[in-house]
């Protein structure tokens, strides 16, 4: 009985060993088939794989795993033939431990559910293990290195099922479903693995190649805008300095207007007093000029930080991306954002320069030209006081007043010339130039053609500098000829 018992145990041991060898070889074969996937996973899609599988994949890809499994199978086969299964080599058992069949399937499943399914299908479609007493065919015998064939050996594929007699294997469909779930969740939740440095470097290098070229272009443009802006700023500073001097000088001139002589006839007195009132008002306008000057605010820094920031952000993006494709997409988006951010930096000095010019012209138009216009008007209204009918005393005083108007006007025109602004030259008797003149009113004059300029109602101003072509700051308002159409 004991002998039978021993015999039974020995047979069972052999049987199990036989199954184990078959299973190991089947697994080795499966691993061999997985090798290309492992190579691809390691090469391009590393971050799909959790870190704990990285070592297994490396061994899978370089064939170490397959070799280890085959070595173990050979070792077991040799041992079961001699009955010595007691001392498996330590190095083999140690090496085998990291990669279980389940893990192998998981890796396959992570790469492709179909691959995992096909493995399962292979298992499930194998013939059932023969029942006791049923004849066993030898169509698929276990290859025997020593040439011995075991009559009782079941087919290798059946052995695979039996050998890996883990409950998990018996529930393979569920197991695969779980794997699929794990695969899905892995995609979503897996911490990005250490991205292959060569891939990151390649992606970032390609992206930065174009980026740096664009950056250089932007930098060159920015430098140009900064130079222009600085030139405009200096011009504005010179103008405001000159304006300050002109204002001071004007106030000084205006303060020297003598009191109205007592011997001015009453008929002229009202007219002279109106000129004095005009000068007093102009003096007040001048005194408020400085307070109206718009401060020139320039950005403190003209740096282009986006260039450095982009490189760092690209590295961060590439390292954190789930795949090279995702990395490329995100890098593209990041470069677009960086380009827009950089563009705002490029336009900063450009806009600053434009604003200085706009503020300057606005200041001139709104606050300075009304003063000059008032001086022009004052001069026009003072001239009749030079008529002899007003008497010598009035004439002399009118000359003083006209001198004041003229001197103050000269001061402000001097300030305007520092920024290239001059009075528009209008030739009476010629046709109106609509680029710099506008008709304010018309009169019939049969000896002249329509649209001939008769007189200037209000002076116009234009600006021209070395860098700016001539531009009209304000149109000259002119009175022109307009004859009745029937006359033409």
């Amino acid at each position, binding site marked *: 009985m004991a002998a039978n018992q021993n015999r039974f145990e020995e047979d069972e041991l052999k049987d199990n060993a036989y199954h184990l060898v078959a299973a190991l070889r089947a697994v080795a074969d499966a691993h061999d088939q997985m090798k290309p996937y492992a190579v691809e996973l390691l090469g391009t899609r590393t971050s799909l794989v959790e870190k704990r599988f990285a070592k297994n994949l490396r061994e899978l890809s370089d064939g170490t795993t397959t070799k280890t499994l085959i070595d173990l199978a050979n070792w077991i086969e040799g041992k079961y033939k001699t009955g010595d299964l007691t001392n498996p080599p330590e190095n083999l058992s140690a090496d085998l431990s990291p990669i279980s069949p389940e893990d192998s399937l998981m890796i396959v499943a992570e790469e492709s559910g179909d691959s995992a399914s096909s493995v399962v299908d292979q298992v499930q479609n194998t013939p059932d293990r023969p029942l006791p007493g049923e004849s066993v065919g030898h169509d698929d015998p276990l290859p025997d290195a020593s040439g011995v064939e075991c009559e009782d050996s079941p087919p290798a594929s059946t052995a695979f099922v039996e050998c890996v007699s883990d409950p998990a294997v018996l529930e393979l469909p569920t197991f695969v479903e779980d794997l699929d779930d794990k695969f899905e969740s892995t995609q979503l939740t897996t911490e990005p693995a250490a991205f292959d440095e060569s891939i990151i470097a390649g992606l970032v290098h390609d992206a930065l190649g174009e980026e740096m070229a664009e950056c250089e272009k932007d930098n060159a443009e920015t430098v140009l805008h900064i130079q222009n802006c600085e030139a405009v700023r200096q011009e504005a500073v010179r103008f405001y300095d000159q304006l300050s001097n002109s204002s001071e000088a004007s106030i000084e001139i205006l303060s020297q207007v003598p009191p109205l002589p007592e011997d001015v006839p009453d008929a002229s007195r*009202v*007219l002279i007093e*109106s000129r004095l*009132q*005009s000068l007093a*008002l*102009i003096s*007040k*306008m001048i005194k*408020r000029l400085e307070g109206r000057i718009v401060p020139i605010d320039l950005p403190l820094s003209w740096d282009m930080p986006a260039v450095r920031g982009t490189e760092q952000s690209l590295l961060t993006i590439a390292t954190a991306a789930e795949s090279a494709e995702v990395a490329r997409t995100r890098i593209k*988006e990041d470069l*677009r*954002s960086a*380009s*827009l951010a950089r*563009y705002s930096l490029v*336009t900063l000095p450009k806009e600053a320069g434009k604003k200085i010019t706009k503020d300057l012209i606005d200041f001139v138009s*709104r*606050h300075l030209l*009304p003063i000059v*216009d*008032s001086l022009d*008007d*004052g001069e026009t*209204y003072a001239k009749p006081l030079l008529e002899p009918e007003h008497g010598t005393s009035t004439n002399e005083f009118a000359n003083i007043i006209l001198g004041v108007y003229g001197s103050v006007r000269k001061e402000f025109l001097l300030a305007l010339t520092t920024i290239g602004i001059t009075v528009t030259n209008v030739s009476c008797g010629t046709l109106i130039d*609509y*680029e710099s*003149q*506008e*008709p*304010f*009113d*018309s009169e019939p004059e049969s000896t002249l053609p329509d*649209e001939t300029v008769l007189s200037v*109602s*209000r002076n116009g101003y234009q600006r021209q500098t070395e860098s700016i072509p001539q*531009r*009209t700051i304000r*149109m000259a*308002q002119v009175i*022109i000829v*307009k004859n009745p159409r029937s006359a033409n």
Partner: protein
Amino acid sequence: MDYSKNLVLGIDLGTTFSSVGQWNGRAATIVEDLKGNEATQSVVFYEEPHNTFTVGDTAYKRTLLNPPFGVIGVKRMMDDGEQTMTLGPKKTTPIEVSAEILKRLKSDALSKVPGSKILSSVVTVPYYFKVHQCESTRKAAELADINCRAILQEPIAASIGYAWQRAQELGATEHTETILVFDLGGGTFDLTLFRLHHTAAKIRFEVLATGGDDRLGGMDFDNRIVDLFLKRAGINLDHLEPRPQRIARQKLLDQAISTKISLTTSPIETVTISDIVPGQGAEFDVTQDDLQEILADYIKRIEDMISEIWSVAGIQPHEVSAKVDRVIRVGGSSKLACIRKMLDQAIGKDKIYSTIKDVTAVAQGAAIYAAYLDDPDLLGKEVEIVTRTCHALGVETSGGGFYALIPANRQAPCEIMQIFRTDADNMTSLDINLFQGSSKLVSDNSHVGTIKVEGLKPRPKGETKVKITLKVSPQQTLSVIVDIDGQRSVGNFKIA
């Protein structure tokens, strides 16, 4: 794509001024004219000796002198774009005149880079423009040969500029905000309330309500300020001859505009004018409160129109501050302190978005939209515009009456069905005339199109039932289905 040679333009074809935005690959910039101006006067003058048209400020000046040869504000004439008008001896149409303005803008843009061409453009129109006005604008664009890809409503264009900026800030963050576009220009006032929905994949503009007044603008304010100056100076111009009166008014108007600008930031401004009329000058202070007072009735009108907007959008007065997130101001007069104060009170403080350049916002937004149509990946997001019917839509009934089926301010898409009866005996054919507008008479409304139904069974008056269904799509296409005795006739018409 080299956008410096392949121009993608957004054109703000305004009543008084027009401007051009250009997409440069990264942003929309404004195309300055040859004189360095950001806007061109929308005035056309016929040069008889050369049989040519002049456009811009020169045309404006010539028109002042020779009014019969020029036209100012042709946009107001687009109600009948095909009507014959005369500029001196020249017979033309508002469409052709508008085309001349567009040609000038095109020429300014092309002159910047020799050898450049217009790849595509978008032209803007007021929100209240009816279908035929939009169509007339489209025809003008065709005449000007500017590859017009779309006609876009001005407030939408203005808010696209804002949405573009916000899209950069928000990225993939999902965000919804309600925006009021407050456009107070020189001669018109428009209000548009939007819901702007940002997601990672889409920017959705949903027009919630619109309103405004096309006879209210900054020029009205300027005239009031001139009157205030005259009062403060104690001067009456009525007794003056026309020319001295004009000179005085011009002087006061220049000063009024300057003072208005100063008072947008300063609470008080001292005004000094010498020789308003010879020998009579004045100095006085004007405050923001003064402006508030003299413009009170205008401000009240604006407030009422804003309240109407809330009502249409279903926003209760106490909910406004919580429900309206931003105000985008467009137009110089919208910067007035009294307007700002009114907006703060009506909507809540710190709601005004100041980053957008108000004067050029429409042209720049249109340029961004043109670039988007050219390259849908441009924004990294899809742009969806959901509008409302700007005018009531309906059919002509007996005696030239207008029966509105879809009211104004109804969100698209929408659909409504109504059964009518014939109003004459033995009718064998029927013209279904479709109109849009607010008048009870079709003669005052705008014709959208006609569907002709023939082969009717002759019946006594009132016995034939005519089932009419109107559908408005988000793209502002009106689909009309007419069912008579199971016979179906269908027509599609653009309404914006």
